[in-house]
Structures are given as C-alpha cells and as structure tokens.
C-alpha cells in the first residue's frame, strides 16, 4: 500500500483482511462470525472431557484411554481449524454454519456417557458407554469394513438393477397406451406387496442367498421408480410434445429428448423413495439370509450379546446410508440444475 506521508495517521486498510486489535473483535459486527465458527466444537469437547475424566465411571481403563485420545484429537483438530479460519473466509463460512451442529453432536455424546457410564440409569450390557462402543469399533474394524463393503455391493447391484428395469417398464407403460392397458393392472396388484414379504419364496426359488437378496432389493426399488416414471412420462405437457412435433421430431426424439427430461423431476422422487425401501430390504435380507453385511453383523453381534458392536454397526450404517442419500441428492442437483427454485440438499 502506497501512502503519502502527511496522511499516514488516517490511512485505513481497504481490505477486511488486515489484523484488527483483539479487544474489538467482539464488538465489530463483521467479526462476530469468527467466534461462532471457533467456539462451539472446542467448547463441547471440553465439556465432554470434563464429564469423561472428572466424574467417576465404570469404564475399563483401556476404553477410557482410547476415548480420551479420541476427544483430544477432535479438540486439536477443531482448534487448528479454528485458527486457520481467521485467515481463510471460505472455511469460516463453512464452519460458522456447521460447527454448532458438531458441537451439539459432541454434547449428545457426553450426555450419553453421563447417562450410561456415570449415572448408570440404563441396564448393561444393552446400553454401553460411548467409550466401549468406540473400543468395539476399533477392535472389530476389519470385520466391520468387510461388512460395509458387502452391504455396499449388495445395495448397489440391487438398486441399479431395479432402477434399470423400472425405467424401461416405466417409460413403456407411461408412453404407450396399449402397454398401459396391460401393464397397469399387474403393477397395481403386484407392486404394493412389500418386497420383504417375498423372502420365503425367494429363498426357495433362487440358487443363492446373495442372488435372492439382489432380486428382493430390485423389486423393492422397482415399484416406486416405475410408478413415478409412468406418472412423469404420462404427464409430460402436451404442448412440449406439440412443439417438438412441429419442429420435425420423430418418436425417438419425443421419448428421449422430451418426455424423459420432462419426467426427470418425478423420476427422482421415485429414486429417493426406492432408495429408502432398498435400505430396509437390504437390512432385512442380510439379517435372515445373507451371511455378510452390516445387517448380518448387527444380528450376529446381538447373538453374542456384544452390544458395543451393535451400536458401532448402527453408527456406521447411519453414516453409510446418509452418504448414499447425499450422493443421490448431488446427482439430482446436477441433473435437474435447470429447475427453478430447487431445494438444495
């Protein structure tokens, strides 16, 4: 910054990045966000550490040590990020938005520990303290990873197969009146049966448990996606089709370039509904037939009364399913970017 001598006293920084005296930060409106980004997580971790270390509990020393290290690691990471955000506005915006939620999650963890480990209001071994769950997760990580991987494979193959079939049947039934005449009654009768109700039959018919699970998941996905594809295609605005016809469009163009894009919002509703039912079917199928996956792991751990592992698997399942859901939302945001006023995930 070039400055002329006599004015030096009054020169003000023209950017916001210049350091501002610390005492004033609380007062200046523009600076408020920095503390909101910084404080929640370290604060919550300190509370959790206080509960964990300061109050007498029934945790095993090894578990307790691991949990302390875990909390300390989070504290370190949060403080580091909190310092970086003072210099990096992009990170600050994200942290200002997310850190209160993270803080609340850590406080919930601490409340859980208070109820289970310190006050012992809930019966053991059904409700272990977070330290024990963390320990189970670390000890059994290989098997948990393997189970997650199998669940992912099963879910994806079932879902993709179901969606592919559903799109074909949906477009056919939605577009062609004769297909609709024959297809709709079948769909109306067979579709509403929950996929899990087919399990006894599927086990008999299918050569392997894995195959029957894939079939069941596809069936679960197929019905909602088909229904909403039909409705989307059949409700394509007649004027779009008229316009396309006057532009010289043939049937292929009408179906693939007009009807299907116009049906996309509706198809995505079906994809979300199908994803929900596929989670349900996956867990049930793994519990009763398939000998791998997170669903199997939960019932297996429950058989050995290792409730720490049950909780560990539930936490991983939550992260796993919500990640897949988020990915589907991201895909929708890309594909339906043309829609006005779409709600972002």
């Amino acid at each position: 910054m070039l400055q002329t001598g006599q004015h030096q006293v009054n020169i003000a920084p023209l950017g916001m990045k210049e350091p501002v005296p610390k005492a004033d930060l609380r007062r200046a409106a523009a600076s408020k966000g920095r503390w909101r980004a910084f404080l929640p997580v370290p604060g919550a971790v300190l509370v959790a550490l206080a509960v964990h270390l300061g109050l007498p509990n029934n945790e095993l020393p090894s578990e307790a040590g691991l949990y302390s290290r875990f909390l300390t690691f989070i504290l370190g990471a949060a403080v580091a990020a909190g310092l970086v955000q003072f210099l990096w506005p992009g990170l600050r915006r994200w942290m200002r938005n997310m850190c209160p939620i993270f803080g609340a999650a850590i406080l919930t963890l601490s409340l859980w520990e208070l109820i289970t480990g310190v006050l012992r209001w809930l019966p053991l071994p059904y409700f272990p303290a977070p330290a024990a769950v963390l320990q189970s997760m670390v000890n059994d990580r290989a098997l948990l990873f393997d189970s997650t991987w199998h669940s992912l494979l099963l879910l994806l193959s079932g879902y993709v197969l179901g969606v592919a079939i559903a799109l074909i049947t949906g477009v056919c039934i939605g577009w062609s009146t004769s297909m609709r005449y024959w297809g709709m009654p079948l769909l109306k009768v067979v579709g509403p049966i929950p996929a899990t109700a087919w399990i006894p039959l599927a086990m008999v018919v299918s050569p392997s448990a894995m195959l029957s699970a894939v079939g069941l998941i596809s069936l679960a996905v197929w019905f909602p996606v088909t229904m909403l594809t039909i409705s989307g295609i059949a409700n394509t605005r007649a004027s779009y089709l008229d316009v396309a016809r006057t532009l010289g469009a043939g049937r292929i163009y009408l179906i693939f370039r007009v009807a299907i894009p116009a049906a996309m919002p509706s198809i995505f509703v079906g994809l979300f509904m199908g994803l929900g039912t596929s989670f349900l079917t996956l867990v049930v199928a793994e519990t009763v037939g398939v000998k791998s996956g997170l669903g199997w792991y939960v019932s297996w751990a429950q058989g050995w009364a290792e409730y720490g592992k049950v909780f560990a698997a539930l936490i991983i399942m939550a992260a796993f399913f919500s990640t897949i859901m988020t990915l589907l939302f991201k895909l929708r945001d890309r594909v339906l970017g043309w829609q006005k006023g779409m709600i972002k995930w």
Partner: protein
Amino acid sequence: MVTSSPAASNEGSPLRILGIKKTFPAANSATAQTPALDETTVSVAAGEFISIIGPSGCGKSTLLRLIAGLDFPDSGELWVGDAPITGPGAERGLVFQDPNLFPWLTVSHNIQAGLVARGVLHQKRHEVDEFMRLVGLEAFAHAYPHHLSGGMAQRVALARALINHPQVLLLDEPLGALDAFTRMRMQDEVLRLWQARRTTILLVTHDIDEAIYMGDRILIMTPRPGRVEQIIPVALERPRQRNSEAFLRLRSEILDLLHLAGSDSRKSGGGPFPEGGASGTTPPVPGNSPGCEISSPPTGGTDWPDLDAQVIIIGGGPAGSTLGAYLAQAGVRHLILDQAVHPRAHVGESLVCSTTRIFQDIHFLPVMEREPFVRKYGAVWTHWGNEQEHVIRFREIPELGLTQDYTYHVDRSRFDQLLLQHAARQGSRVLENARVENVEFDASGAATGVRVKHNGQERRLRCRLVVDASGRSTVLGSQLHLKRHDALFDQFALHNWFEGVDRGPAETADYIHIHVLPLPRAWAWLIPINRTVTSVGIVTKGADFTKGGETAEAFFARHVASHPLLARRMAGARPVQEFTREGNYSYVMDRFAGDGWLLVGDAARFVDPVFSSGVSVALESAKRAAEAIIHALKRNRVSADAFAGYERTLRAGVDIWREFILLYYQLPPLFLDLIARPDTRGQLTKLLQGDVYDRSAVPILAQMHGTIQAVAADQQHPWHPHLSKDLIPAGEN
C-alpha cells in the same frame, strides 16, 4: 430447399385450405359434438402475411393446429405447396402464446432442437449462432429459460421455429402476454424477419391494431360455429403508422364488423383516445408526417398554428424526448416545449446499462450505435490513500433483457439533440426556444394548459395533461412550491472538459473513473467524451467551496493534488473551456403528480450523480410516465389518482438510488471493500447498471447499513475515522 443464411429470401409456400370442418366431442356428453370450424376455405399466397382475428371460440387456434398437422379435420383438404398435410412437419413452424421452451435445455440448445430432431445438427451447427444473433440473444446462449423475461423467451421460441426455415410460420398469439412496449418491438422484429425471408405467415391475435399493423390481409372469424366472416386486404404502405388516419379508419371498420365498437371511441372521430376536454375542438396538427424535423413556428404574429395537444411536455431533455417518443408510438398527440435551442451543454455525461432497454423500446439504439459515443464497459474507483484500482465490469453480470454489456459516455449537447430529433421523427411536435411562463389551472385545481413565451410573443396552449420534464429548472415544482432540498446532499460540483488526461491502463481507459478525495464526501469524476476530451469534475460539500474564497481554478487544482494518482493522471491536462459550477444539488418534490399534471426526471427529484443515475432516472421515469399516461387517457381519467402507481414506482426506485448513494458517502472504504469482494460485487454491479426499479428488497444495502452501524459503534475500528457522521442519523429513517 434450405439455404444457410437466415436472410435467404422467398422461403414461403402457398397454402390452400379447402372446405375443412372440425368438431370436438362436447365436454359434458359422450355423444354430442361441438363444432369448432365450419366449412372453411382460405387460400394464402406464398410469402403472404395473414392476420387472423376474432373473439375467443371462433376456431382461430383450431385452424392453426390443423395447418400444423397436430389435429386432423373431419372433412376437407389442406395443402402446403403441392403436398397435402398429413401430420406435423418441420416445414410448418408453430409458435404458441406460451413460448413453451424446453426448461431443461439452455437457450442455444432450445434453438437447435429442430436441427437435432431432424438429425441435421452436424451440418447446420453454424446456424445456431446466426439465429441467436438474429434475435439478439447471443449473450444468453447458456442461460436456462427460467432466467429469461417473457419477451426474450418468445424471441427464443421464434428462433427455434425459424431455424428449420419453415415455408409456413404459424403464430398463435405469440405476443399476447407481453407488455405494450415489448410487444410493439416484437411486432417490428417479426415483420423484419418476414421481410427478410418472405415466409408465409399466419398470425392469430386478438389485438386489432396488431392485426392491421402486421397483416397483408386480415381474416375476421366469428364463433359458434367458427367460420371466416370476411377477409379484409390492408392496403397501407409499410412501415405502417399506427396513428395514421387510414389506419384508424380501418380499425373502426373492423371494430364494427366484430360488433365490439365502443361508443366512446367512435364519437371522438375514430381516434384511439378521447380528445381534449376543455378546449372543445382540436384541429388537425400540421406537419405530423413521418420524418418531421424539429420545427420552429413562423414568427408572424397571427398565423401561429394551433398547438393545442392532448399532452404538453415542458422540456426537451432526455426525459421529455423519451416520453414524447413513447407517446408518439402510442398515437397520443403531444407537444414538447423546450426553452433552449439545441445543441446546448449539460452535465450528466455517463449512462447506466438499464437505459439501453429504453433505447430499444423507442428504436433509438441504432442511433446510439451509429454515433461515435464512447462505450462504457464498466467503472473504476480509487481511494486517495493508495494506488489500488477497484474495477467493475458490466460483462461480469449480464443484465437480463439486454443484448449488450456496455452503455455509453455521451456529449450531452449532442445526445440530447439526437434524442429530441428522434422523438420528432417518431411523431412528437417540438417547439424550441419556447419558455413556459407558468402552468394554468382551473378553479378545481386541475391543470388546463400552459402560458408560453416564444420569440417575444405570449400565448396560451391548452391540453388535458401537463408533464413537467424541465429538469433542474423545476418549472411546476417551483410554481406549486413542492420543492424540498435534500439537506443530506448539500453537494457542489465544479467541472470542465480537458485534453491530455492520462486515462490509465488500456483495458479500463474507456471506463468511468471515480476518485475518492480526502475531504468528507468529496470525489472526482473522469468521463471520456471522445478520443481526446475527458470531462473532469470535482464534487464536494457546498460549504467546502464557498468558505474558501478561492478561484475555481485554484479550488480545482487543490483537490486534484490531494489524490496522488489523480494528480499524476491530470499532470498534462489542459482545460478546453471555462469551468462550470453546479450548486445545491439534491431535492425532492412533495408530490410527483396531481390533477392533470405529472413530473418526470429531474423535475421530480434529483439525487447526487456519483453513480451516473441522472439520465437513467430521466428515461425510466419517462417510460413509466408514458405507461401511466396512455392508460389514463384510455380510461379518460387524468386526475391525481390515475398517477398514484407511477409516483409510487418512481419514488421507490429513486429511494433505492438515494439510499445507495447515502450509504456510499457514509463510509467510502466499505463500498470499495465490497466491490473488491467476489460475493458482493455482483449485487453492486447490478445496482450500478441501474437495476433499482420494481424491486422490493435490496439485501446489499441492508448489509452496508449493518456494517456502518457496527463501525459507528466501534471507536477502534480502522474505518471509524472515515465515517461521515453527519449523515448517519438520517440513515435510520
């Protein structure tokens, strides 16, 4: 069949409609049939433009759908050229009232849809750009339809139909949903395309004026059952004058045929508007032919032609001329009185982007493009405390509805003269060197006319409506004591034209430069007027100038020297004329309208020009005043309440300018900081382009307000010394 250029001629085909009938199943019964079209026979020549008009239910749209091949007649035949119509085809394009753009495709993909559908995209991809240019939308190639205004979407729909080079173009009320001005512009655009390509066009409309303005022949249809009642040839020269006598006569004939003719419009001799009230008779205005130049009436005392008009506009500056052009387009008889003889000097030399839209409305843009005005692509701010240039480029935020990413710097004497001449060519009557002594009112307080002095003669002119566009002379505001000074902006300006000014880096040389000076609320403008001349002005608080007792030159030099960068840029500058002062800058009128009168532009309100808002306010207010006036005359009500909406809109728009300017002055470093930041500069750019009207909320202003409050409360804040504290309390209300 298809040539590569969109300007290819004679693409049209003849069309024969032979005895077709069409019935639809009635909605409430399985067996009953509703006749939609009864025994219709029409034959259309190649390249002919047919307007189809009639009340709803007369089968207009059914006829188009049958020709398009989307429906089939119960009996009869349809032929295009030598081929019978058996279904939809690309040689017959159809544009609906709703543009029906595919919302999932961008503008360019929508336009190329026809090429994709016919599988010829590969060979004809270059035509996509041509057609995008043809309808002036190349800047929006990658926008999605929901970003477009109604007029733009309809232009895309037209381009999409035209890219197939149809032999027959079917237009089903495509302009029905547009506002009056966009509509007139689109009509001319369709005519231009038709004249370039000689496509056969069938236009369904329910607007009689549109039918006459556009068609070679008009098909008049009647309902229940739908059939062609009559075919009327339109034997008017093109381009047609919407207010010519022959046009109006044809209009009333058609109204009679449609049994719609209102008694009002026929009593007043076929004109679209009721004629002047108190004056009784209104003889025809001489010299109202197209191409009429600015005329001075003869000076001989007695044979001064009668200049009574429906609307008298005081002042021929940008506001008055623009209003005149709009009124001329709508066929409202009016007279512009200007005190000066053009050309005459004026400040306010830099425009904002939103004015382009108005230039388009009144067909003035070609004139602007032809003149050697300097194009303004953006703005540069600097602060006296450092060397940094804060640049805003208009192209970063395309203003929707505009096809160019620049506006202009103008020599106001030339610009104002051109605009006034343009209004005269559009049909405005202009009287120069005519000083309005006062506006006359009747006993009830309604304006009835003006007393005007011209070449030493004094004369009364009567009218239904007086519009004060006298700018900072504020003829009517002063007469009615409406004027209140805006104490917050007691600003003062000293300016001149210079040669030899260094305009800085080449990229921003044509931008307006605003240099913030050390004194509170002091700044300098640098506006390129032409290749060599730059307009430079210093603006300060009024008190800062008057107290010094310096000469203008010394004052100017002292302020230039206070900004090191500005001083360097001005080092080799020579003034080319005397310094001019403008004092006592800002004011607002208590009311903008009353019974029989209306204020537009600076005559209504003047705010500090730091963001080049002056001409924009003049033009925008003229446009909105024109809408209000046309509407009021149609309803035959020119009392104050007819203009309440106008006053509200204008007040709201200028309030946003004022708020923006006020916040700017309160804390200049904040503004510079915000334009340097990518997340806020867009919003500021839009404001600086003139996007202040028809807005309910301006989040960026609220944000600025909040920050200023915080800085004001914080004595330690580094910006605190830069606050203009005297402005802050007023920011609260």
